[in-house]
C-alpha cells in the first residue's frame, strides 16, 4: 500500500469522496477507443463492445461517446486519413481550393477513400495552426502553409506517404 495522499496542509485526502473505480474506468473510454483505432483504422462493432467492457460501460454508452468525436471513426477509412482544415483562416487562405485539388489528385470526393484504400480525405475544424494556413493534418503531423499547385499537392501526398505516424491499419 502506498502512503496516503496528503493535501497542502498535510492532511490525508478523503479519497472516498472522489471518483469510484467505475468512474475511473469510464474516464479511459476515449483513450481505449483511440488505441483500437490506431490498430484497426476504425472502430468496428466488436471492438466497440470490447472497449465498452474494458471501461465498465454498456456498448450503447460507449457508442454514445464514440459517435461524438471528430477523430473517432465508426466506419472504415483508408490507411491514411488526411484532415483538411475548412475553418475560417484556412478558408481565407485557400483551404477550399486545397481540398478540391487534393481530392482531384486522389480521384475522390471529400469524405471519400481512394480505390486502393490508401487515403481518406476528411474536412475538419480549425486545427489550431492558423499561422500555417491553409493546413492539413495527417497522422500526427500538421502540414502547412500549403500550396495548391499541382506539384505541391503531389509533394504533399508524397510527404504524407512517407510519414510513419500517418499510416494505420
Amino acid at each position, binding site marked *: 500500500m502506498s502512503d496516503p*495522499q496528503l493535501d497542502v496542509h498535510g492532511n490525508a485526502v478523503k479519497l472516498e469522496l472522489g471518483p469510484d473505480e467505475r468512474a475511473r474506468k*469510464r474516464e*479511459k473510454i476515449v483513450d481505449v477507443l483511440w488505441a483500437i483505432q490506431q490498430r484497426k483504422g476504425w472502430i468496428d462493432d466488436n471492438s466497440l463492445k470490447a472497449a465498452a467492457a474494458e471501461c465498465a460501460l454498456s456498448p450503447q454508452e460507449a457508442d454514445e461517446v464514440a459517435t461524438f468525436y471528430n477523430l473517432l471513426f465508426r466506419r472504415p477509412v483508408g490507411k491514411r486519413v488526411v484532415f483538411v482544415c475548412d475553418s*475560417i*483562416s484556412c478558408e*481565407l487562405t485557400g483551404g477550399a481550393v486545397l481540398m478540391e485539388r487534393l481530392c482531384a489528385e486522389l480521384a475522390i470526393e471529400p469524405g471519400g477513400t481512394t480505390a486502393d484504400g490508401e487515403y481518406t480525405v476528411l474536412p475538419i475544424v*480549425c486545427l489550431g495552426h492558423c499561422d500555417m494556413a*491553409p493546413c492539413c493534418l495527417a497522422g500526427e503531423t500538421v502540414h502547412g502553409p500549403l500550396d*495548391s499547385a499541382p506539384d505541391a499537392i503531389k509533394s504533399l501526398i508524397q510527404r504524407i506517404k512517407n510519414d510513419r505516424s500517418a499510416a494505420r491499419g
Partner: protein
Amino acid sequence: MTEVLLAAKGKNGAPATLDEYRSAQGYATLERVLKDMKPADLIPIVKDSGLRGRGGAGFPSGLKWSFVATGDKADGGPKYLVVNADEMEPGTFKDRVILESNPHVMIEGIVLAAYAMEMTDGFVFIRREYFKQADILERAIDEARKAGILGHSVLGGKWSFDIHVHRSGGRYICGEETALLNAFEGRKAQPRSKPPFPAVRGLWGRPTTVHNVETLANVPGILRNGAAWFKGLAKNPEGAGTKMYGGSGSLERPMCVERPIGTTLRELMAEMGGVKGGKQLLGVIPGGASTAFLTPEHLDVPLDFDPVVKVGSRLGTGTFIVFSEDDCPVHGTLNLQRFFARESCGFCTPCRDGLPFGVGILERIEGGTATMGDLDLLDDLFRNIGPNSFCAHAAGAAEPVRGLYQHFRGILEDHIHQHRCPFPKPGAREVTHV
C-alpha cells in the same frame, strides 16, 4: 517589450527544458511560495493583479479562485484544477505556442494555482490534434516529477500533487468548461447546467476550477513580481499583464506574439506585415470565431477586454482573423456558421436546429438567391438564438452575424441586389514555400 514571459523558448527554438526554465528563475517562485506563504495569501495577490481569464470570457481569475471552498469550509475530499488546452476556436492558436515553447511556465502556474485553492490533483485536457504539444507537455511533466516538483511530495514537502494529461477525441464543445468535465469523465461532451458551478460540483462532482493555458502561464510572473508589476505591464490603464496575440487570415505574416495587453490592432498588424498582398483592410474578427467584426476604424482600439467591448465586440481569445478587401464577410460568416452548426453538441434547440437554419439562409444570401425578407429573417433569427441557447456556443455563433449586420449591411444588400456574391472567389495561394 523586452521580456518574453509566457512563451520563452529554449535553445534553437525547441521547447524550454526544465533546466532552461530554471535558469530563467523558473520554479523559484514556487519554492518561495511553498516555503513562505499560506495558500490563502495567494488569492488577494492574484485578485489585485487584475488577471482575467484568457480562455475567452475574461472572468477575473482571483475571484474565480475564491469560489472554491478551502480550509475549514472544505470537506477534505479531492479538489481538482483542470487546464483547458482544447483550443478549437477557429483562428486561435496561442495556447499551442505556449505549450510548444515553454510548458514549464504553465506547469508552475498550475501548481501555484492548485496550492492557492488547496487542490489535490491537476488535469490537462488537451485536444488530440495537438499530438506534438501533448508529448512536449508530458515530457515536461515528467521532468518536473523527476525533479520533485510534482508527485508525492511537492518540493520535499508533505503536499502531494501531480498533473495528468487527458487527450480529447476532438470536438469544439469540449472547450466549454462544463462540457469539458463531461468529456473528461468519459461521457458525451454536452454542457452541464450551472448552477451548480464547477467550483462547487465539477469533475466527478468535486470542487473544480477550469483555467485556460495562458491564464495559468501568467501566474508565476504575478507571484514573483507582484500585482503592481503585472498591472504595469499593460499598455492601457485599465489593463493588466501581457497577451498572446495571434493573427491569421489575409495577413502577410500570420503569427502569434506576446505583447502588453492593450496593444492595438494597427501595431500588431504592422508587425505581422500588414494585409496580405498589400490589399486594403476590410475588417477583422478580433478574438476567434465567436467575436463580432471590427473595421478599419477600430485599428487604434487597445486590444483589451473592456475597450473591445466598448466598440461592440469582444477580445475573446485575442487571436484575430484578417479580412482583406477581396474577402467576402458574408462568405466568411457562412464559413463560421457552418463550423458552429457542425460543432453543436446537439443538446439545445436554438443551436442544434437554429444554426443550420441560419446556414440555410446564409447560403441563399451568398448564393444570390435570397430576398430582402431573408436578410431580416437572418438578423431576427440570430437575435433569438444568441441570448437563448443553453451554453455560450450558439451565443458565440450569433456574434459574427451581429457584426456583419452592424458593419457590412451594405455588402449584404449588394448580395441581394446583384443576385450573386460581389467578391472574387477565394483563390489558391500563389506563393509556394514548403
